[in-house]
């Protein structure tokens, strides 16, 4: 079982408050790993560190043994790591199809010259991008939305497209920040199936922050639990569910809030 992504001793603090403290996690290839924990546990902080948005104070991230330290998010993306965000990040200024084509950005190799003069190479590339984008839209059943503006879709639909957009150009690891937010119960079930298909058919490692426990427990191969910036549990869903420290973290947190 090889490791797709490794977070090693990651620590980061904001304004004196430690968001992550010496967190180390191995994310194996071709698995769905859920990250759970009470609010403020550092889950999104971890995602932000992994994808390069916030460099950690200490520690390192390795993507297939390549260190990501010092890299910008766009560099990290070019190595095969994508992510989604909690709020919809579908670009409203372009059509759904064009949004999908943005996901293929890294496929493009034509420079300014090709764009300005509309070289044949550029036209071929555009056609290919268009074809792949349409195919992906078809895959999630949104072909008829292709030319509508990004903002025309409902929130739930936008999130599905966003996930599709991260998948379109052969990512190795995809970080999903609360993918089920805003989705109806039926859509969550569809999402569950979609995630499994992505893992199995595309061989992608999915790392998912989620609060919808049913989804996380149902679909994850393993779960990592964070609390107050530290990793307190890790393992199969059944183990984690019954781990006393985890239970205390959630209950304790609840008690503290009451």
């Amino acid at each position: 079982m090889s490791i797709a992504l490794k977070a090693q001793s990651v620590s980061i603090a904001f304004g004196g408050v430690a968001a992550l403290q010496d967190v180390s996690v191995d994310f194996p290839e071709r698995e769905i790993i859920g990250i759970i924990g009470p609010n403020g546990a550092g889950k999104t902080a971890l995602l932000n560190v992994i994808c390069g948005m916030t460099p950690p104070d200490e520690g390192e991230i390795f993507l297939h043994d390549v260190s990501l330290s010092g890299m910008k998010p766009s560099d990290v993306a070019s190595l095969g790591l994508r992510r989604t965000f909690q709020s919809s990040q579908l670009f409203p200024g372009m059509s759904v199809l064009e949004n999908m084509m943005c996901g293929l950005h890294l496929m493009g190799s034509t420079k300014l010259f090709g764009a300005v003069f509309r070289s044949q190479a550029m036209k071929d590339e555009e056609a290919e991008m268009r074809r792949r984008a349409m195919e992906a839209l078809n895959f999630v059943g949104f072909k008829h939305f292709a030319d509508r503006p990004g903002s025309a879709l409902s929130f739930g639909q936008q999130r599905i497209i966003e996930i599709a957009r991260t998948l379109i150009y052969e990512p190795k690891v995809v970080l999903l920040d609360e993918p089920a937010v805003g989705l109806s119960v039926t859509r969550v079930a569809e999402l569950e199936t979609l995630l499994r298909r992505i893992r199995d058919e595309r061989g992608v490692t999915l790392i998912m922050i989620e609060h919808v426990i049913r989804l996380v427990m149902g679909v994850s191969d393993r779960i990592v639990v964070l609390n107050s910036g530290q990793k307190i549990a890790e393992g199969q869903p059944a183990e984690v569910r019954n781990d006393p420290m985890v239970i205390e973290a959630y209950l304790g947190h609840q008690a503290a809030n009451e």
Partner: protein
Amino acid sequence: MQFFLGKRTFLIVLFGALLLMPSLANEYHIFIANLVMLYIILALGLNMLIGFAGQLAFANAAMYGIGAYGAGLLMKHFAWPYWAAAPGGMLIAMAAGTLLALPALRMSGIYLALTTLAFAQFVWWLMTHWTSVTFGAGGFIPPPIDFSPIPVTQEIGIYYLTWVAAILLYLAAKNTMASSIGRAFVAIRDGEVAAESLGINLLRYKALAFAISGFYAGTAGALYGGMLGFVGPESFDLLQMILHKAAVVIGGLGSIIGSVIGGVLLTVSVEITKELKWSIEMAFGALLMLFVLFQPTGLVTFIKRWVPGWREHLQYLPEREAQRSIDVEASVEDVGITSTDESAQERRP
């Protein structure tokens, strides 16, 4: 029907008319027509930067001036011929524009707007005070431009040169925005964080947007200097900046053909305003406000709604961005607890 009312027809008619101008009209009209073409170029460049890439910059008039001064001074101080000095001016303007990409990486919105504005004022100050180089507030007259062996006067020669430039720059703009570069620009405008996570290198594309607008403005500047036969700071002040912005907004932010329309309308409106002896400041201040309030996507939106044949790529303007920018990063989770907020907090001081 589509052909007759479409974009292409409009452009053919417009540029055809402009081509024929010198043989049909008087000197004044030729001057105005020349200005129309210059404003088309200026609006195209600025639109790609603020309309497509969403970088709110206020330095376009300064770039325009740098192009004019660059070309003129290369001719005056170093006796370069125009065919070398003009590209020289264009490149200097492009370089200056690109420099502004550096602050653009670190800040956005009002911060960027005012930093670029400060830069523009600084450049203007240099134009008026660095007398030894720029000849100060009175400006200077560059050496006359010789188009031989083509038998045209400077005036006519520059006119046709501008005509060619306007067409080429229009096509370049259209093609570039229809490519993945255009999509990258809009992605940056609509959600730069997500854009980055899709692999779009922010520095590269912001620098490109600034470089392009600098290049376009610089080209217009070099041509303007040739057209007037004079270069002086008063043509490149804050009012000029507002006129550029007005051209882009009136035509349509984020629309290439809109910039053509905007350039034409702006020039014509300025002349009408002058004729009527109205205050340009009041007229264009009000016009800018009215358009922003009631039709921010510009006149081109009307046209697109009613006339077939005017579709473009990337033509939707974001309406909901206000929720992200102005509403202080608030989301339902945000009344204190959100993890997104915490983690994103220290990304930029």
